[in-house]
């Protein structure tokens, strides 16, 4: 084999070799950096700024908003009507109940139950059950909204038809029990995530742990309580934080109830939409946004600190 003469052409010097030089790295980061700065980071600061103004969608204050200090916050937290329907306090409490009932109880428990069940049942039952649970989760939210709209229809809906078939009285649930409708709806919509997270957690437990328990004569409940549960504790915490954040921010129930009837399903996200885009009070809407983001921030910090601890 021959060696080519070493060319003496001047070569660009590398100060400190890396697969991607700092210059190229910065260039590679620029497009994403710009997009994220403008559409994620800027809104965060802008919303704080707008919340101190009386900006509106139309009219004089649309162009020349005035600085109003904490007036928007005082309006939100006005003790005179804080707890009244259609006011911020009512919405915040409603959202808290919604998160507790549909995420922490509904999705997490149902997800856990499903994850445990599908481990032991015959594959075909597992596949069918999984298919529907996951379908509820991946289908576009508008389609789901419409499906439930049809499902709950007072006169023809599948639910009332079923109730009639077993001899129960029909109901107009969207009018009578709107809160419980969106709780069940959100549980149904989101259980798939918890199920998938927990079932991947369960399947990462070495089967020998369970076999050892089988040999010792443990019941299914004992195996779940003494082996499964303790070993996926980390996943449970992750799951609870994530589904809490998503449920807190979800806008999907709007597609089913529009926030009504008479504000009875007006979650903070829907309240925020109404104040800003129906009442056109951007300043007040921004103040709602700030409070939502502060709550998100608290959860995110907890989540990230747990993630960091795990890495160490």
């Amino acid at each position, binding site marked *: 084999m021959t*060696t080519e003469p070493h060319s003496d052409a001047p070569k660009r010097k590398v100060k400190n070799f890396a697969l991607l030089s700092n210059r190229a790295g910065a260039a590679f980061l620029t497009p994403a950096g710009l997009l994220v700065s403008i559409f994620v980071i800027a809104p965060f600061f802008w919303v704080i700024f707008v919340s101190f103004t009386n900006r509106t969608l139309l009219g004089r204050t649309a162009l020349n908003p005035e600085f109003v200090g904490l007036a928007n916050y005082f309006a939100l937290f006005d003790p005179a009507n804080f707890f009244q329907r259609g006011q911020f306090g009512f919405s915040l409490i409603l959202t808290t109940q919604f998160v507790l009932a549909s995420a922490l109880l509904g999705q997490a428990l149902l997800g856990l139950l499903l994850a445990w069940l599908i481990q032991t049942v015959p594959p075909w039952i597992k596949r069918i059950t999984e298919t529907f649970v996951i379908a509820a989760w991946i289908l576009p939210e508008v389609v789901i909204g419409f499906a439930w709209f049809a499902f709950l229809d007072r006169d023809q809906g599948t639910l009332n038809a079923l109730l009639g078939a077993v001899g129960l009285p029909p109901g107009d649930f969207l009018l009578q029990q709107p809160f419980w409708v969106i709780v069940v709806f959100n549980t149904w919509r989101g259980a798939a995530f918890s199920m998938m997270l927990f079932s991947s957690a369960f399947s990462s437990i070495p089967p020998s742990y369970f076999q050892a328990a089988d040999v010792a004569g443990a019941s299914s409940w004992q195996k779940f309580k003494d082996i499964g549960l303790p070993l996926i504790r980390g996943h449970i915490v992750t799951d609870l934080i994530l589904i809490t954040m998503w449920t807190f921010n979800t806008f999907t129930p709007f597609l089913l109830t529009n926030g009504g009837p008479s504000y009875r399903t007006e979650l903070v996200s829907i309240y925020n939409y109404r104040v800003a885009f129906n009442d056109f009070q951007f300043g007040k809407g921004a103040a709602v946004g700030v409070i939502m983001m502060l709550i998100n921030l608290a959860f995110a910090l907890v989540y990230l600190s747990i993630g960091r601890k795990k890495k160490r």
Partner: protein
Amino acid sequence: MASVEFRSVTKSFGSFNAVSDVSFSIGDGEFVCLLGPSGCGKTTSLRMIAGLETPTLGQVLIGGQDVTHYHPKDRQISMVFQDYALYPHMNLADNIAYPLKVRGKSVSERHGRAREVADVLKIGHLLDRLPSQISGGQQQRTSLARALVYPSQVYLFDEPLSNLDAKLRLEARGFLNHLQRDMGMTAVYVTHDQAEAMALATRIAVMDQGRIVQYASPIEIYRLPATTFVANFVGNPPMNLVEVEASHGNGSLQLRADGLSIAPLPMTDVIGKALATSSKLTLGVRPEHLHIAQGSAPNTITAALFANENMGPESLVTVDRADAGRVTARIFTDDHLQLGETVTLAFSPEHVHLFNSKGDRIPAAGE
């Protein structure tokens, strides 16, 4: 082909020095093995030759030219990676010919050359397979082919055989040996396997904690290990090391240790210098230089039998000196020994190695 030289090269990661002030040179056509335990800085050194790490201090020269700050692509080198780094989306022909592609060669030249090299390495019939469709040994040869397909100044190998099973490894080692003698390539070869280094190298650089402890031919490394570290790393099983207490008088050196009986050795100036700092020395004897003796003759080590492992042509007899460690002998007879029985292992004085209290070799008279 070209020479390679390190001039006072240091590589730090944060405050940790992976390579500390290393200088050595590799002549044109030499096959040098970097040998040492895991984490001693072999790969880092090799990657500095390749340009994949930039030294913190010092210079790297290839063919007499300072390439310290050259991009890897400008160094005209070849490298075989431990994990082979075969591109999973290209078939073997494209994998092997990739270096020619980036050199702007025509498709026909690329494929012709890839076939030539592949035929030499006996993978010519696999050229349209994907890397995932061939065996580990064939993958190893493919990565070798990719390194050989273009002319290089230096060939770099990072533990290229460590992912092969024992039998394939021996076969590949033999092939590499043949190739090197055939091509006369300049090569730097990283391994933690002393047998591999002994078999392949024209010179071995033994590394420990970021430094080169000894840089010499395999035979010299074996015969005259520079430190207890080298002595303990090279040879299978490695050299027995026995801590001894030394005293001298009348021009002779007396060594004492439990179970050791040794005739006085001639005293030299170097030994005197070593004893000036400490009277503790280390005596080394290779297992193959020990044999079983009867009674308590001079130049013996006596202790209770710990294990007797039959290896076929030879057996490894290990005796246990309690707190003072174990001593192993390679014995070519098959004596029937009882566990716990007292065994006497004899050696001749010319096979004794001495190290000072810091572990450095004390040269024998005439060395």
